[in-house]
């Protein structure tokens, strides 16, 4: 095949997206684990490792820039590179949300929980599933699967609504819990945003394949 070096570089970019996605997934997983286990050292490690996520994102940006400058990609190659710029940003921001959760865990220290952690871990599982599915769709260039990722966001939103209602009810019953409830609300909000960003990644997959940028229905939180 002509332009072998270029196409190897394109494959390399795709591999780096998956690597960044995998790092982010691990960060989300560890931040929720730190919350559930009240593991402050683990939370601090998540905060530290966010630099690594940021570096991986900028490395990906630089790879894309070099290919744009040196290889003048066209058509599906051009769309993929433009999509990867956006995906890299979304993934890096997901990493920031995981870091945000870890910072809350550090703030909470051994503060007692105002409610059992059921829906928040469930949100995390769902949001990570969305992220993995969006990345699978990227590899498979799967448009239908990408739209399915968008629909999964409804489940995360429903969980978020429940967490929100529960925490508001607790705060109304006992205003001494406001600070603790607000912290958990922020954790849930970070997970909800992670799911939204997974949807954005899925939108970019559709763009890569079709050239159209769909507006998948995400929540307005």
């Amino acid at each position, binding site marked *: *095949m*002509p*332009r072998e070096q*270029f*196409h190897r570089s394109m494959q390399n970019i795709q591999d780096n997206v998956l690597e960044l996605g995998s790092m982010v997934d691990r960060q989300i997983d560890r931040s929720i684990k730190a919350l559930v286990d009240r593991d402050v050292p683990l939370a601090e490690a998540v905060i530290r490792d966010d630099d690594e996520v940021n570096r991986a994102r900028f490395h990906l940006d630089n790879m894309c820039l070099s290919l744009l400058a040196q290889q*003048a*990609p*066209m*058509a*599906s*190659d*051009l*769309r993929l590179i433009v999509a990867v710029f956006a995906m890299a940003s979304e993934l890096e921001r997901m990493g920031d949300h995981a870091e945000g959760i870890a910072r809350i865990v550090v703030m909470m220290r051994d503060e007692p929980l105002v409610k059992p952690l059921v829906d928040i871990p469930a949100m995390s599982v769902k949001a990570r599933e969305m992220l993995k599915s969006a990345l699978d769709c990227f590899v498979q260039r799967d448009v239908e699967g990408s739209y399915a990722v968008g629909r999964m966001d409804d489940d995360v939103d429903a969980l978020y609504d429940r967490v929100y209602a529960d925490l508001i009810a607790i705060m109304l019953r006992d205003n001494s819990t406001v600070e603790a409830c607000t912290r958990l609300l922020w954790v849930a909000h970070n997970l909800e945003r992670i799911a939204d960003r997974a949807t954005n990644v899925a939108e970019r997959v559709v763009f890569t394949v*079709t*050239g159209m940028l769909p507006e998948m229905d995400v929540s307005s939180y």
Partner: protein
Amino acid sequence: MAIESTKQEQATTTEFSGVPVAAPTPAGRGSVGRNDDLSQVALKADRVSAWYGAKHAVGEVSMDIYTNKITALIGPSGCGKSTYIRCFNRMHEFTPGARVEGGIYLEGVDIYDPAVDPTRVRQRIGMVFQKPNPFPTMSIVENVASGLRFKGITNRSEVADRVEASLKSAALWDEVKSDLKKPGIALSGGQQQRLCIARAIAVEPEVVLMDEPCSALDPIATVKIEDLMTSLAERFTIVIVTHNLQQAARVSDWTGFMLAGDDGIGRLVEYAKTDELFTNPKDPRTEAYITGRFG
């Protein structure tokens, strides 16, 4: 040369008999963005086929070339794109044994109608070639004036005015105005090509065909020609054949992709607005070509 084409009733010798025809009114290309008015078709090619003797080079290619647009033709070597545009101004017939079928219409008149004067066609549809070809024995001014004399314009002051205007339009005037008597071939390659463009536009054609106009030029001279094409498109309709995909993407409004099939006949695979063709081509063969996945 055998010509088989639909003849239109309105074909008359008058329209091609040497009466100067004004260049089309600019169709609105502004300083911002490109003119999107596609209502005007400068040149209509209808199922054009071309042969070199028994060799069938181009197979039934139809295109509407829009007024005041830059249309690029791309495709691998041997796909027939140069042959195709040489049919647009009856240059193809200069090759012994060559023939054309189909119709090419300029303002509704088939340029292959027997009543049409081919010399007049070439005045209205000018051409710039791959290798700059100023007349070697002529000065700069004589090169530009040569076409005017063919057209019967001999009044000295009119010739001088037109030469100056053409050299200015070709972005060459400032570089040569102090030495217009210098031989054309004493200029640099890029200047020679702009001189050829000045010569082509001096006779006020409606359409300017450019066959790989930058392939013999360095990058700086290429940029000058590309900038020039954009400004010329305010007054002329331009068709460019180029091997350089980036050049087609940079300068053109519309792009046609031609490809020779297993039978060796060049056909039009896709014709679309340039930004669409280079970002989201519809035909997988276009996609394969512009992403370098051929072979």
